[in-house]
C-alpha cells in the first residue's frame, strides 16, 4: 500500500487551507489517515489513485473537494526542442520510452525527498516493481541533447548512482544494491537498456540505476524525465503524474520529441456520459447541471451536453478512469458518501440453504447430541500429520502448495481424522474424556468435497464406541450402509471396519492403532470414525470444481 507523507507547511501552502481540514476530510475522498505527527501526516491512498501519491496531487484534489478551486487543472506544455531516439533492438526488451523536460524546479531537501517518494510509490503501483515502468530523473544541465535510448552490450561501463567508480552493467547486477534487487528484470537479455546523451555519456541503465553524472540535487534547476517500460499506457501515466505534480509545485513543463512524437501533451481525455445511467446507479436524481458541478469538484472538466448528458474532460493523471462508472463513483464521492440515504430495495427473494451446509448442520446436530465437542481445524496441513503419523500412504490426489509459508502448511487436507488426532494432542492436558468432531471441506485432485470425523479419547474408548457412533450418524443421515473388516493401517487389526455404500468405501471406524497414538503423543485409547459425506442422499451432484 502507498503511504504518503504530507508535510503540513507545504501541504497548507499548496491546498490553500489548514491542516486540520485536510486531515478531517481526506478520508472522504478515499484514504486512511495512518499517523498524525507534529510536522506531517502520513496518509494511505488506494492503488488505483497514483495521482494522489504526492503532496501536490493531494492538494490538487483537496482544493477541488473543499470547493477552493474546481474544474480541470490547466497545464501548458511548450516544446523543449530536445529529442530522443529509441533503438528498435529494444522491442523485445523494454520498448517504450516516455520523457519530458521540467524547468525551473525549486528543490530543497524536502521536495527532493517528496519527488523520490512519488517515484518509489509509482514504481510500486504503476510500475509493478519497475518491471512495467521504471522512472529516472536527471539534472538536464549536466548532459546534452539529442539523447538515445539504446540496447547496449552488457560490458558497457559507467559510474552508477552512489558509487565512485565505473562498473560494467553486468557488475552492477551483482555488486550494486539496486542491481541485485532488480537483476531479475533484465538478466535474461543479451543486451541491456541504456540511455546516453549526444556525447555518449550514460544517464541511466533502466530499470536498474541512474548514472552518478545526472544526480538531482538541491542545485538542480531543470530536470529531464525518463520513463521506460513494457506497457505504453503505464509509461505515459507515470510521465503525466510526475509532470503534473511538479507543475503544481510551480515548475514549467516542456515536451520532448521521442521518435518524432511530441510528449507529454498533458491533455485531458473526453468522455460523454449519461446522467440517467449515473442517477440509476447511485440512486440519486441528478440534473446535468448538478452532475457537472459535482464532477468539477473532483477536478474534471464537466459541462452539460444537452438534457441528458455531461461532457467530461478527464485529467491526464487520472489513469483509474477506465469506464463511465469510474466517473460516476467520483460523482458519489463529491456528493459525499455520508450524505446517501441507505434504503432497502423491494427485491423479493426466498432464502435457501445449500444442501452441503444442510448436511453439515445435520452432522453437527447428531454429534453434539452424542456429547461430542466441535472443533474447526485448519485445512492446510502437512504429510507428517496427514499420512506419516497415521501410518497411511499419501493420497495421489493430494494438492501441494507451490510456495508454502511454513513446513506445517504444505498440503491441503484430504481427510479430517488426522487433524482431530492432532487436536487431541494439543489438548492432551485437558480433562478426559474428550469427544471431538469436525465437519468440513477436503480436497482431492482439485475437487472439494465434505467429510465428517469424530474421535473419543478416554481409558475405556473402544471399537464398540466407535461403531455405535458411526452407526448412529449413518442412520440419522438416512445412509444405508454395510460393514466389512477394514485394512486401514491407522486402526488396530481386528478392531476396524469400513463403511460401504453402493459397493464403495465411504468411511472407516474403529480403535486407533497404538503406533498412531504414540505418534500423536497420546496415552489413552481412541475410538474414531470418518465419513465421506458425498455418500449422503441429497448430496449435490455438481462438485466443487475450480
Amino acid at each position, binding site marked *: 500500500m502507498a503511504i504518503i507523507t504530507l508535510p503540513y507547511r507545504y501541504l497548507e501552502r499548496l491546498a490553500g487551507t489548514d491542516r486540520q481540514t485536510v486531515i478531517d476530510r481526506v478520508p*472522504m475522498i478515499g484514504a486512511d489517515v495512518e499517523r498524525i505527527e507534529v510536522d506531517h501526516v502520513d496518509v494511505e491512498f*488506494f492503488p488505483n489513485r497514483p495521482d494522489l501519491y504526492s503532496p501536490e496531487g493531494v492538494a490538487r484534489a483537496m482544493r477541488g473537494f473543499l470547493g477552493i478551486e474546481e474544474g480541470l487543472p490547466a497545464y501548458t506544455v511548450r516544446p523543449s526542442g530536445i529529442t530522443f531516439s529509441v533503438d528498435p533492438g529494444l522491442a523485445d526488451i523494454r520498448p517504450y520510452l516516455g520523457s519530458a523536460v521540467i524547468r525551473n524546479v525549486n528543490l530543497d531537501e524536502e521536495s527532493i525527498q517528496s519527488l523520490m517518494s512519488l517515484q518509489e510509490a509509482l514504481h510500486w503501483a504503476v510500475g509493478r516493481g519497475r518491471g512495467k515502468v521504471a522512472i529516472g530523473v536527471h539534472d538536464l544541465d549536466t548532459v546534452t541533447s539529442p539523447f538515445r535510448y539504446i540496447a547496449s552490450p552488457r560490458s558497457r561501463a559507467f559510474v552508477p548512482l552512489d558509487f565512485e567508480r565505473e562498473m560494467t552493467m553486468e557488475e552492477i547486477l551483482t555488486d550494486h544494491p539496486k542491481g541485485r534487487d532488480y537483476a531479475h528484470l533484465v538478466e535474461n537479455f543479451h543486451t541491456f537498456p541504456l540511455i546516453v546523451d549526444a556525447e555518449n555519456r550514460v544517464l541511466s541503465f533502466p530499470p536498474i540505476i541512474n548514472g552518478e553524472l545526472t544526480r538531482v540535487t538541491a542545485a538542480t534547476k531543470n530536470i529531464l524525465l525518463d520513463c521506460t517500460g513494457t506497457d505504453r499506457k503505464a509509461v505515459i501515466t507515470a510521465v503525466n503524474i510526475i509532470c503534473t505534480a511538479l507543475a503544481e509545485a510551480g515548475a514549467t513543463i516542456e515536451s520532448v520529441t521521442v521518435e518524432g512524437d511530441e510528449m507529454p501533451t498533458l491533455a485531458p481525455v473526453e468522455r460523454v456520459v449519461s446522467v440517467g445511467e449515473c442517477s440509476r446507479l*447511485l440512486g440519486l436524481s441528478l440534473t446535468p447541471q448538478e452532475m457537472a458541478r459535482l464532477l468539477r469538484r473532483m477536478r474534471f472538466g464537466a459541462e452539460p451536453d444537452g438534457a441528458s448528458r455531461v461532457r467530461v474532460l478527464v485529467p491526464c493523471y487520472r489513469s483509474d478512469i477506465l*469506464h463511465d462508472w469510474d466517473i460516476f463513483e467520483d460523482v458519489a464521492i463529491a456528493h459525499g458518501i455520508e450524505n446517501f440515504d441507505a434504503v432497502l430495495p423491494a427485491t423479493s427473494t426466498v432464502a435457501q440453504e445449500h444442501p452441503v451446509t444442510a448436511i453439515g448442520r445435520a452432522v453437527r446436530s447428531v454429534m453434539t447430541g452424542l456429547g461430542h465437542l*466441535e*472443533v474447526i481445524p*485448519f485445512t492446510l496441513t502437512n504429510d507428517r500429520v496427514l499420512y506419516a503419523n497415521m501410518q497411511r500412504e499419501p493420497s495421489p490426489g493430494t494438492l501441494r502448495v507451490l510456495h508454502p509459508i511454513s513446513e506445517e502448511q504444505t498440503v491441503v487436507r484430504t481427510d479430517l481424522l488426522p487433524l482431530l488426532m492432532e487436536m487431541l494432542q494439543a489438548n492432551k492436558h485437558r480433562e478426559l474424556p474428550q469427544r471431538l468432531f469436525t465437519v468440513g471441506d477436503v480436497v482431492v485432485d482439485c475437487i*472439494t468435497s465434505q467429510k465428517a470425523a469424530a474421535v473419543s479419547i478416554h481409558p475405556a474408548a473402544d471399537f464398540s464406541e466407535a461403531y455405535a457412533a458411526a452407526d448412529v450418524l449413518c442412520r440419522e443421515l438416512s445412509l444405508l450402509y454395510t460393514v466389512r473388516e477394514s485394512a486401514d493401517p491407522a486402526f488396530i487389526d481386528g478392531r476396524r471396519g469400513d463403511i460401504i455404500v453402493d459397493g464403495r468405501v465411504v468411511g472407516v471406524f474403529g480403535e486407533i492403532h497404538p503406533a498412531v497414538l504414540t505418534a500423536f503423543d497420546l496415552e489413552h485409547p481412541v475410538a474414531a470414525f470418518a465419513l465421506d459425506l458425498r455418500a449422503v442422499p441429497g448430496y449435490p451432484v455438481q462438485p466443487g470444481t475450480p
Partner: protein
Amino acid sequence: MELTLNEKRLLVVLGAMGSADAATLAEKMDTRREAVVQYANLAGERGLVDVEKRVSRRYIPTEEGRAYVGKGLPERQVLESFEESIPMRDLQAHPLAKIAIGWMRKKGWIAIRDGVVQKSGNTAPGPDEAAFARIAESGEIADGEGVADLAKRGLVEEEETVAYTVSITPRGRELLAEGLDLQEEAGTLTREQILSGEWKSLPLRRYDVTKLPKRAYPGKAHPYQRIIDEMRRVLFDMGFEEMAGGIVQSSFWNFDALFQPQDHPAREMQDTFFLGERWPLPRGYERVREMHEHGGETSSTGWGGTWSAAKAQQCVLRTHTTSLSIQHLAAHPTPPVKAFCIGRVYRREAIDPTHLAEFEQLEGIVMDEDVNFRHLLGFLKEFYAKMGFEKVRFRPGYFPYTEPSVEPEVYVDGLGWVELGGAGIFRQEVTAPFGIEHPVLAWGLGISRVAMLRLGLRDLRQLYRSDVEWVRETPTYGGRR
C-alpha cells in the same frame, strides 16, 4: 430444623456418651471416621454438637528407622558386638560398621589408635536412644528430647494427625429429649415405591443445595460455528440463498473473471497460494479476454496489453469467495438474485495474532433491476445492525472489481470505529462477459474478525486451535465469558 438421619443417629450415640472422638463414634455408628466428621460438621452448623479439632504431630520410623526398631541404633548394636577393644579391620566386617563407626566417634564412645578401636568410659545411652526405644512400644513417638536428632538422621519422619472430639451441646440434648424419628431415609426413589404408594411416607434423603454439582460438559457446536450460523440465519431472514463451492479455483474465476489485471500484485506468488495444477477455461472465456484487452462492448478501455489464457488456467487456493459469487451469477444471470456464501479463503501471509493464512469470509450479492448504491448501503446497515453493530458509517473504498466501492466502519465500544469489510457494485467489466445486465451489489467481510470481537479474543489462532477447555467454558448463548 430438618436433620439428616445420620445427624440424628450421631445425636443418639452422643446422648449416651456425652463426648467422644470421631474414631470411637465411627465404630459405634458402624461407619467411617470421615463420615462421622461430616455428620458432626453438619450438626455443628446447627449448634447441636461442638466439634473440636486437634492437630497433633507424631513421629514414625522411616524405612531405615524400622530396621533398627527393637534392636537399637546402629552405633549401639556395633558397640555391643565387641568387648573393650577390637582391631579396626575386624570391626569393619560388621554390616553396620559404615554408619556406626562415625556415630560412635561423634558420641565419644570410642577412640581409635594404631588400628585398634578402644571403648571409652562413657557409653551411656543419650536422649536420642531413649526416644528411639519408645518406638518399639507404640510404633510412634511424640515430639520430645532427642527426636529432632533422629529426624535429622532420617530415622523418623513427622506425621500430622487430626483428631476430632465431638460433644453434644445443651441444644442437642434438648432436641434429643424431644425425641427423634430414626426411620431410614431413602437415597433413591424406586419404581416400586412410586407404584406402591410407599413414597407417601418415605423420608428421602435431603441434599445440600449449597454444594456445587459435578461439572458436566455438553457436546456442542464450536463457538465460532455458532457465530457463523447466526450470520447465516440473518441472511436467510433477509431472503438470501446460500452458495458453496470449491476451495481450489482457477485463476480465471478467482481473478480474471473479476477483472483483476494479470499483472496485479495479488496474483504474485508472495500473496497467493498457487498450485501446480491447471484447469481448462470455461466456454465463453473469450469475452473475459476481450474485456481485459479493450473493454469488450462496454464504455471501458480495458487494461490493454495481451491477456494470457495460460495464466488464467493456473489453480490457486481461493483468495476470496467472490470467485463463487461470479460463478453463481454466471449460472443465474436473470434477476432477482440474492445469494451469500461463508467460506474459507487463503492468503499467503505470515501467521501472527491478527493474520492467518486461512480464515472465513462472508460475501453477499444482490442483483436486480434498478438496485443502486443506496440499496447497497441499506443492505450493509441492515446486516450489520442484525449482527449487533448499530452504528455504521461509510467511506469511499477501492476494490478491483467494484465501482463505486465503499468501506463500512462499525462502532465498537472500547475500540471506536472499526473497518469491517468492503462493498461495492460489480464493475460492468465483471458482469458484462456473463450476460448479467443489471447492477450487482456485493459486500464481503472477514468474519473471523467479527468472531474475535464477539468472543473477546486477542489472538485469531484461538479460533482454530480449539482449546477444549475454552470451547467447554464458552457459553452457548449470550455474552462473552
